[in-house]
Structures are given as C-alpha cells and as structure tokens.
C-alpha cells in the first residue's frame, strides 16, 4: 500500500451533530501522528478508515481504489487497528491463541499463524509469556498483546489508538521501535496520540484535529512550532519545545537530544 486517501468525507452519528463535513486527508509512507483534544473526531476517523463506520458522503481510497464495498472483516487483511482498551478483544485463555486469532481469521494456516504470532510476540518482548493466561498479565502487558495480535496479521497499514497510555518509559521505547520497524518494512503507520512528547519524538508528520477539521498538517517540527494554533485546539507544545522557549532560544526543538547537543555546543 502506498497511499490511503479520504476525499470529501462526511459523517455524523446523529443528524443534528455533524462530525465531519467534507474532510480531505491522505496518508503516505511517512509515519503520522494525529493529535487533538477529546471529541475532536480522531477515533471516528480511524473507524471510518477501518470500515467499522460508513461515511454518509465521500470516498475512501487505498492506492486510488475505493474501499466502499469491503466489510471491516475483509479490510482487516490490509488495515490493522490496535484498540485503546485490550480488554475489549481478549477472550482466549492463553496468549499465543489470542494472538493467533486474527491471522487465522484472515486465512493463514495454523502453522503460518503460529509463526506469525510468535514473531509478533517477540517484537513486543512477551515471547516468554506465550502460555500464560492474558488476564493474569498487567494492563500494559495486555496492551502489548493486543498490539501483537494486530502485528501478527501482517497488514499493509497499522493504526494505533493511544498506544502509549498506561505504558512506562520502557513500554514507550518498545512501541517506538515497533513503529520504526513497521515504517522500514514499507508499511503505513498512523497513530492517535494525546502524548505530545511521544508524537514529537517518533513521528515524521503530525496532523492536528479540532472539531472534525484539520487545523494543522505537516512536518512534526513545523506543526509543533505553531504555538498559537495548537493552543486554539487546547494542545500544548512538547516539553522540550517549551523548555527551549523558556530558556530564550528561538530555534524549535522537538527532540531532547537536539536540545542537549545545542546546549553543550553553546555552553
């Protein structure tokens, strides 16, 4: 998959409140973060992309071809979505079976599915827990299992909904590594985030949504330098950017390492 496009998309849950009205957006090989306050329409957007919701107007295209006729289950071969709450999907009594559920659904044989599942669990560092009951693990580990269960399906596009919530530093680093790896494999990566620092650190492109509209879209560095527009969407700049600003530097920093290097040079 090279591109995922939304053209003139309109959607609403109830007739009097329009969520999207003529939304145009496209995703390409750049890793993309979507940020915005609660209720901005981020989750609705990815549900539309996943075929879980159908737009009332407009088209969604993968590599220029409309996906209007595909069901969510059919789309799941191509687009993977990692849900926020792992408890909404876990039902097997051991980790390996849980991760194999998706691959088996999209037609892999048992041995292929098991291989894919073990590889995915290795990526999230949970290969030692294959025989455990998922409900004996912690919430952050269950989140990683949910993530692995999508990775195992080997989809061309992976969408994450709030992957960093409830993860400690090590967990976040793991997720960051996975995102980079998916990107080098040539997959499209899209991520809904509330964590500006993580967005700044791990994504090439950032899209800011506010009340169903895109108010900023571009290179992560450029997006996070626009303090006024971010504030309008009730968002903060990443801490590094704020610190640099407080120190009186005009350059925009989005990585800690950049600022440290800059300070060392100028000290």
């Amino acid at each position: 998959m090279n591109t995922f496009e939304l053209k003139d998309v309109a959607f609403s849950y109830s007739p009097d409140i329009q969520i999207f009205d003529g939304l145009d957006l496209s995703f390409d090989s750049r890793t993309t973060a979507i940020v915005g306050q609660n209720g901005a329409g981020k989750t609705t957007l990815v549900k539309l992309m996943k075929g879980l919701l159908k737009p009332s107007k407009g088209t969604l295209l993968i590599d220029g071809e409309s996906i209007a006729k595909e069901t969510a289950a059919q789309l799941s071969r191509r687009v993977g979505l990692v849900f926020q709450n792992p408890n909404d999907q876990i039902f097997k009594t051991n980790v390996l079976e849980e991760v194999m559920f998706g691959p088996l659904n999209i037609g892999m044989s048992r041995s292929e599915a098991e291989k894919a599942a073990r590889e995915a669990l290795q990526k999230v560092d949970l290969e030692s827990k294959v025989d455990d009951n998922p409900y004996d693990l912690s919430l952050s580990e269950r989140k990683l299992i949910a993530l692995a269960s999508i990775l195992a399906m080997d989809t061309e596009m992976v969408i994450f909904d709030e992957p960093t919530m409830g993860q400690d530093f090590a967990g976040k680093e793991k997720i960051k590594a996975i995102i980079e790896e998916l990107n080098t494999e040539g997959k499209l990566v899209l991520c809904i985030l509330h964590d500006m620092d993580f967005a700044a650190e791990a994504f090439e492109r950032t899209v800011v949504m506010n009340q169903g509209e895109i108010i900023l879209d571009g290179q992560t560095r450029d997006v996070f330098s626009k303090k006024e527009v971010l504030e309008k969407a009730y968002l903060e700049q990443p801490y590094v950017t704020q610190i640099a600003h407080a120190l009186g530097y005009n350059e925009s920093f989005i990585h800690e390492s950049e600022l440290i290097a800059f300070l060392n040079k100028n000290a």
Partner: protein
Amino acid sequence: MNTMTLYVEKDSPVHRLDPLVKLLYVFASIALTYILPEPLFIAGVLFVTLLLLVIGKVFRNSLPILTLSMFLIFSLVIVQGFFHPDNVTELFSIGPLVFYEEGLYVALVLVLRVLVMIGSFSVLILTTSPDEMVERLIKKGMSPRIGHVILSVLQLIPQMRATTSKITDAQRSRGMETEGSMLTRIKAFFPLMGPVVLNSLNETKERSIALEMRGFGSSTKKTFLNEEKQYPYNKLLAGIIIAIVILGIVWRVMV
C-alpha cells in the same frame, strides 16, 4: 447515558403525584378487580385508570404495551370461550368447536383485569422516574442496597449493549465476520461473549470498590442529595384510595 426505562418526562398532575401514592393505586386497583369481579365494576376501574393515563399525557405511550398484551387477551378469550367447564349456552360454532356464553363472560372479567393491571402499572412506570421512586422508597425505610440494585439493573443493559458494540468492532478489526450465515454467527459467539462477561465481572468488582470508597456500606443514617419534594394532596389521595378498597370489601361481604 440512556437507561432502560419507559419513563416519559412531562409535566402533569399525575407526574407530580407521590410515587408511593401511585404504587398504592397499582395495588388497590388490582385488588379491587378481585374483590368485586363484576365486568361493569372492573370496567369502571379501567376507565379511571385510562383517565389517569390521559391526564398524565402518556396514553399514547401506553398503547404499545397494551398492544403487546393483545396476544394474551386473545388467547384468554379463545380458551375460556371454547373450554370453560361451566359452558352451557351456545353462542356460535366453528365446525365441531362450540363457543359458549359463560366462557365469554369469564374471559371478559379476565381480560378487563389484565387491562387494569397493565394500565395501572403503566400509570406508575410511565409517569414516575425510577430515581424518584427509589429515593422515595429508601426514605420510607427500604434498604439503600436494594435501591442500588434496582437502579443499576436499569443501567446495566444499555451499558452492556455499549460494551458489546465496542467488542464487536475490536473483533471485526481482527478479521472476524459477524454477519452472514447462522454458522458464522455461532462462531462469532465466543469471541464476543468472552470479553463481555469478563468486562462485566471486572466492572462490577470495581463499582463495588468505588461504592465502598464512598462509604456506601457505612451504617450511619444517610442524608439525601435532593430536597424532599412536596406532595400536597398525598394523605388525602392515599386516604381516598384506601377508603374505596375498604368500601369494596364491605360491599362484597354485605351483598
């Protein structure tokens, strides 16, 4: 969040009545249909009940409930009309089956009684918010635990519906078909029900902890958030209802 309730929010004299008076009316009207099982008399009670529905501006809302009960009413008439043991006087016949007058009479009493039951329960349910009713009952000495059970059951079903749709989304994202043939639906059952049940159990546990954290189990006397509503004609109305029931009993014994 919408709860499982038939309550229709409107402003009417019936809405303003004390829930307990309405509850009393439910019991009294049903009791009366047993105390005086005369069609004409029960029809009178039914008339008053329907009048209350009209005054409460909920007559239209009670129609679906009455329609649902038509099945029961219809079968009552058929069974009693054809098969009541006292049947003697023939009304008409379909082939070998004979429909009798006595059975029709018995059926009439039963049908009217059913209508009174449905009608008076509708008065109570359609015009009383569950919150108001439970709070009133707790003030009268019902255990707050029972009150909580009643109210949480009303919330549980819509909540489970919401969880189920979230879980369906999550499993469909993993390539599970939920629509189609019977077999596909059966196969989809466990992946959907597993998380629903586990989530409900978890939620229940967390809810009970949260309630304890806020002192729900404490044995001190509880105060109420809402100011007590004033129900002006409370005692008078309750008195009238009780008087009518007593009059009915006296009438039955004397005549």
